[in-house]
């Protein structure tokens, strides 16, 4: 399950599209390189088949770390009837399981090679030390408890009842003692060699040697060799690990890998979103501008159209008027001419009646008069 998920962690494509798939390999750059952890890191091999459930390690841990004394003393083995987890006053617990007879297994921080807790901490309060210990710095811790959410082994505890200085508590691998050249408290006290301290790389070899030497005695699996990218604490068991409450479905993916896909999308979004969004803005702005320009133009052209039409009508009107004028003038002229002719006729009649000799001259003058009158009329109209 875990492996198939890892493949799909980079869902970048879904957010941004195919363009960024190139960037994906980069965001995954880390996977190309294989990190093997601090080469000189220490660890502890816990052979659960050797554990007798004496709870001496619990006691030693309590004393070394100066923790609160529990209600029930450490030699009260009935405590183990209930399954327990690590807590603020118990960095380690031994649990009892049913196998062929009683089986015991000690539980504490596994000091992962790629600690989920450290990967989750947003103030670097948890760190993988070069000694192999995963150490906690109270002075940085904000108390968000994301480390507790992240830890696949449910190890860190929190002092919830401390109002002002609550802190995360977990096994320190006895780093101060290691630096002094001493063994961790639990390893030191263990009467049965159920806990073996050493360099992790040596312990892996030792564990396999034990299995190979005694294949019927052990399950063929060194728990912690690869779980969640490997842990500094390693386990051997005679019964399946599920039965001693150690999850076998964690997979081998180191914790930081789970988030690397999502973390990889972050810078790409920062890089591309402003470009895309400004682009969208520019387009919508441009559309707006074009729309308003078009509107303006439309207004203008309708105006022009209207003007043309008006001009047309005006000139038509003018034409009509001039025509009317002309006809009016012509009519006038005609009328005048007719009148003049009539008058001339009448005059001529009168003259004929009176004297036939003067006929032509009178007719001429009258005709000239009539034309003049018509001319005057035209001039006035204009």
């Amino acid at each position, binding site marked *: 399950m875990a492996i*198939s*998920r*890892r493949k*799909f*962690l*980079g*869902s970048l494509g*879904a*957010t941004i599209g195919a363009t960024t798939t190139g960037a994906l390999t980069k965001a995954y750059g880390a996977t190309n390189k294989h990190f093997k952890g601090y080469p000189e890191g220490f660890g502890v091999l816990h052979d659960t088949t050797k554990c007798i459930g004496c709870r001496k390690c619990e006691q030693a841990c309590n004393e070394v770390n100066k923790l609160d004394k529990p209600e029930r003393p450490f030699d009260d083995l009935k405590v183990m009837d209930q399954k327990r987890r690590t807590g603020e006053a118990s960095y380690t617990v031994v649990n009892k399981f049913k196998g062929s007879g009683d089986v015991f297994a000690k539980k504490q921080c596994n000091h992962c090679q790629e600690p*989920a807790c*450290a*990967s*989750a*901490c*947003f*103030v*670097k309060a948890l760190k993988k030390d070069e000694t192999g210990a995963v150490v906690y710095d109270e002075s*940085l*811790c*904000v*108390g*968000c*408890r*994301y480390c*507790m*959410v*992240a830890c696949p082994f*449910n190890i860190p*505890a*929190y*002092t*919830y*009842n*401390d*109002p*002002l*200085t*609550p802190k995360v508590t977990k096994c320190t691998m006895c780093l101060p003692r290691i630096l002094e050249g001493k063994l961790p408290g639990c390893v030191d006290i263990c009467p049965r060699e159920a806990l073996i301290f050493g360099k992790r790389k040596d312990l892996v070899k030792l564990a396999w040697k034990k299995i190979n030497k005694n294949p019927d005695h052990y399950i063929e699996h060194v728990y912690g060799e690869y779980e969640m990218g490997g842990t500094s604490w390693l386990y051997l068991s005679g019964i399946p690990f599920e039965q001693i409450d150690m*999850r076998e*479905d*964690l*997979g081998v993916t180191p*914790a930081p890998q*789970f*988030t690397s*896909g*999502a*973390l990889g*999308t*972050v810078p790409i*979004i*920062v890089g591309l*979103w*402003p470009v895309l*969004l*400004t682009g*969208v*803005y520019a387009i*919508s702005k441009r*559309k707006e501008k074009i729309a308003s320009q078009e509107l303006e133009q439309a207004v203008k052209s309708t105006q022009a159209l209207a003007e043309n039409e008006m001009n047309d009508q005006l000139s038509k009107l003018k034409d009509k008027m001039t025509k009317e004028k002309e006809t009016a003038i012509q009519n006038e002229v005609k009328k005048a001419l007719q009148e003049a002719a009539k008058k001339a006729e009448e005059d001529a009649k009168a003259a004929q009646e009176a004297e036939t000799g003067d006929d032509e001259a009178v007719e001429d003058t009258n005709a000239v008069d009539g034309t003049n009158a018509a001319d005057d009329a035209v001039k006035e109209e204009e």
Partner: protein
Amino acid sequence: MGPEKAIAEKQYFTPFNVVAGIIIFVGLIITILRFTKGIGAVTNLDNNNPWGLWIGFDLLCGVSLAAGGYMTSSACYIFGLKKYHSAVRPAILTAFLGYALVVFALNYDVGRPWKLPYPIFYSQGTSSLLFEVGLCVFLYLTVLFVETTPAAFEWLGFKRIRHWVVRLTLVLTIFGVVLSTLHQSSLGALFLIAPSKLHPLWYSGYLHVYFFISSMFAGLSMVIFEGTLAHKWLHHKMDDTHLAEANGVVLGFGKAASFIMMGYVGIKIIGIAVDNNWHYLTTGWGLWFLVELIGFVLFPAILYSVGSREKNTKLIRIAAIWTVLGIVLNRLNVSLIAFNWHLPSADRYFPSFMEFFITIFIITIGVVAYRFVVTRMPILYEHPEYKKDH
């Protein structure tokens, strides 16, 4: 003297004020308990369940439901949908109050709240998604604050500085969308580190995409929902533009939400397919998953579609409430219900009475603050002096 005093008293002792007052009073008592007796004294949190209601609801739901701010402002200022302009200010205000309260609530939840600035200013745990969330929430809260100030400046009459802030609108909006994309998705990605604890149906390599996409319709639905409430109680504070545009906002946002929700259903199914999780669907958890996906995403999406096709704003408002409930259900599923699903029921978490109360207390503070601002500043109406410029 007599009648005036009566009026003053009447204003103080409205049912709203009395209830809010009692809640805040009790909330303060629990606050004192929290900071004198410790987190353990008021919560049901334990070593197996380090995150409870205050993270699952106050942080996760709070942030996703405040997504209306970036959705509305980007629709209006980036995508140029000017018809939603009157919805921007109320959405930005609720987003700002929402984020401010999220940060406020965090002070209850984290062990040493005075160290909250540490991740940003002192010791940056850059490999953590929580660092990403913290940084973005901090920056986005600042952006939202600046985006809210023009209303305050108009109220106070600071014209010059208002002018300068308004000029930044586009940059702030784009920043807002970038930051929102990041922290909305990162809130989902927080759970990527714990594949062994979250039920496979909810755990997915796409978790951050799911959170981001669902925050979009969460934000849209919340704008509709808040609008419904505001119309009921603050109708008199709205101007004609706001009232005229309100129906358009409801219809447009409802349609958008419906479409995004359908897309979300699609990518949820893709998530099941790529991890080959089909067989889980027949288990009890599968049933619960389907209740969430079909009952609280698909169903309201269809309600929305019917509402927007038939221009039925009432149906859309119902769909909005339904969607908001669906978002709450999804966030609680991821952070609490389907988280630690393999633990025996005795080790599971259920919030204490006081955790619920602090959550109600914080919501109440939000409502009171919203009312305070809206009844004074030009949020639901445009200030007459600045009507022209947008």
